[in-house]
């Protein structure tokens, strides 16, 4: 008997997934209607939601999902864990094979790509009625990454930005009680730290195989990185030029070593050893530093918001969002999927999630009490997150960032201590021109798509 019921349920699930495109495009707006029409008889029928989550989050979300299951008898949530390294391929393959789950975690730089595929359910209608998710409570830069072409397609789940981790003792010994807030004064402090550093010790670590450090600097400058609605690269702007010049100058003055992250065993131990006094890193480093550095050194490190060209700087608006896929699974499925997203978005759930994973919550309400409010190391993140600035939302963004990384790495290798200001300006000009050329090429298809859309 039980087996038969089980098989029946499975068959219905499969049939529902084979829905026509017309059915698929039913928006959340139809949800309320659907709920009324289907009535109570369907409401307690057992149903299994599928959710995909990446890496550590996929493990730790189980506890929060169990709460949801208790609150919704008859509903089971099957969480599948994807490794980050394979997640992007798997998502696109699942899209082609029509096996996307109901709910998923997505890196917020992937939203515009999946939106371009038409895989994401717009959430605005559900959002309007929601008692739980309040857009105004979210950090604005983070929320903005979830709005693609005017539609909200994701709800931020946790945030990720980069800021300064530094050795308070080394900075104090160099005569600074606090991290300066402007680029100019920060560089002065780096020079002071470097003067006291031993051989093979540096003021700051900017791994040449990562783009996040340079991007963080570039976002603090006013002009956008792409122009004309994400049609062309804008790396030849004066803004980006200033950021790149500042970045390269740190290498020219030998304040930063020309090294990649893979050349170190790990950055946390090296910060403890004083190989460098500053690094630009993400929230997970808090946990790593607490775990790895000896107790005697725990007071020696701290975090600080990024300095900017004129006062506190902006940050990357990174992190993951929760999305609802257009699986054509019917109104009830979509409604329950949305309720699962709501459940994971309550301040209580976000605080618990922070305890479980160390991931920072995107809502201000979640920061107001508990461990987050009391933790001095995360306080800097809160102020940095208020200034987080969204990168251009184009599907090609990840590829563009890879080009940025390669170009800047080449430029770093061209800079010598003997490089004059004029030569540095030339390196910057050449790098930016080449970068724009490559980015324009990457965006060629997008321009054609946009032109065609407008013509219609």
């Amino acid at each position, binding site marked *: 008997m039980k087996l038969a019921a089980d098989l029946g349920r499975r068959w219905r699930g499969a049939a529902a997934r084979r829905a026509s495109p017309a059915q698929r495009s039913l928006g959340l707006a139809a949800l309320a209607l659907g709920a009324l029409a289907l009535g109570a008889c369907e409401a307690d029928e057992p149903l299994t939601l599928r959710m995909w989550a990446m890496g550590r989050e996929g493990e730790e979300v189980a506890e929060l999902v169990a709460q949801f299951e208790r609150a919704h008898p008859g509903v089971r949530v099957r969480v599948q864990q994807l490794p980050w390294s394979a997640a*992007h*391929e798997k998502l*696109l393959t699942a*899209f*082609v094979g029509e096996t996307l789950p109901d709910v998923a975690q997505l890196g917020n730089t992937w939203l515009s*790509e999946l939106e*371009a*595929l*038409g895989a994401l359910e717009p959430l605005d209608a559900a959002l309007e009625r929601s008692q739980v998710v309040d857009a105004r409570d979210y950090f604005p830069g983070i929320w903005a990454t979830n709005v693609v072409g005017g539609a909200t397609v994701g709800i931020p789940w946790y945030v990720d930005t980069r800021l300064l981790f530094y050795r308070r003792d080394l900075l104090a010994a160099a005569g600074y009680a606090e991290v300066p807030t402007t680029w100019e004064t920060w560089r002065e402090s780096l020079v002071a730290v470097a003067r006291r550093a031993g051989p093979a010790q540096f003021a700051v670590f900017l791994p040449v*195989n990562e783009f996040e450090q340079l991007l963080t600097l570039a976002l603090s400058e006013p002009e956008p990185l792409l122009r004309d609605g994400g049609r062309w690269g804008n790396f030849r702007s004066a803004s980006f030029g200033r950021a790149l010049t500042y970045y390269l100058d740190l290498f020219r003055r030998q304040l930063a070593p020309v090294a*990649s992250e*893979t*050349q170190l*065993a790990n950055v946390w131990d090296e910060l403890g050893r004083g190989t460098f006094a500053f690094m630009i890193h993400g929230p997970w480093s808090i946990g790593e530093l607490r775990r790895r550095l000896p107790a005697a050194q725990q007071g020696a490190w701290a975090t600080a918001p990024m300095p900017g060209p004129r006062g506190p700087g902006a940050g990357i608006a990174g992190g993951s969002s929760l999305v609802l896929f257009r699986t054509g699974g019917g109104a009830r499925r979509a409604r329950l999927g949305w309720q699962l997203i709501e459940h994971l978005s309550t301040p209580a759930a976000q605080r618990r999630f922070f305890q479980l994973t160390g991931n920072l919550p995107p809502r201000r309400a979640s920061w107001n009490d508990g461990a987050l409010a009391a933790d001095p190391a995360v306080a800097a993140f809160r102020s940095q997150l208020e200034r987080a600035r969204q990168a251009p939302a184009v*599907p090609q963004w990840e*590829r563009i960032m890879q080009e940025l990384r390669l170009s800047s*790495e080449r430029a770093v290798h061209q800079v010598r201590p003997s490089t004059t200001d004029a030569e540095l300006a030339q390196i910057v000009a050449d790098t930016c021109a080449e970068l724009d050329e490559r980015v324009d090429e990457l965006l060629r*298809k997008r321009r*054609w*798509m946009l032109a065609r859309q407008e013509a219609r």
Partner: protein
Amino acid sequence: MSRSRAPYLLVGPALTALTVFFVLPVVAAFVLSFTDFDIYGVADLGNVRFVGLSNYSRLLQEPLFGKALANTALFVFVGAPLSLAASLGAALLLHARVARWQAVFRTALFAPVVTTVVAVAVIWRYVLHTRYGFLNYALGVLGIEPVDWLGDPRWAMPAIILFAVWKNFGTNMVILLAGLQAIPEDQYEAARLDGAGALAQFRHITLPALAPTLLMVTLMTMVGYFQLFAEPYVMTRGGPVQSTTSILYFMFEEGFKWWNLGFASAVAFVLFAILAAGAALQLALARRWSQP
């Protein structure tokens, strides 16, 4: 059933499978290589345009493709001879009359071949670890400074070559061993009576008798090594600074990371052309060599 139809019926299933799973995809990929099929094309086929040869011309201007080509060439022209030398050496040792425990050694030397690349690559990553790896420990005993095998752009490819040679030499060793065992013992006896030393015997009897086997093995090894992918995928992800990005890895990234399937198909056909040209050249050389 008529007699003339029978053979078609018999080969039918195999031909159908070959057509569906091989011929059609190849033809589709060839057509794809003249389009700009990308992520937008995945969404809607109406977003795909025919672009003629522009994928191919872009490919030739792409600096990373040149780099991938150079990396692959380094892997093939250093790795394949090394691998062949190791196979031949091991086969000769195993074949030597003084060798004992032949079956044990043969199994031990062949073992790496039957292990999965991914599992073994993970273990090799430990062996190659800069600080805690066995290799650097062994070098340290000899007084050699530790090498950042997988992190230094100059050493990553040599490390991959080392791994691939260790992983693959067993197959060729077994084939060459079979070739050695097929050489009649009386030829060696005659040579010894004529006063030929070990080296002369190797040069004038073993090598000529082994030539056809060696040629086949060389061809297969070269073709196989051109398709370098799993090792960098697991061990270095094509890095550092793209020093281990092979043609196939480049194609994989273009196709399945960035979903430029049209462009990636063009890479596949360029790789195919290179392999075909290489094989033809090798066969021509072999023909000249075997006709005095």
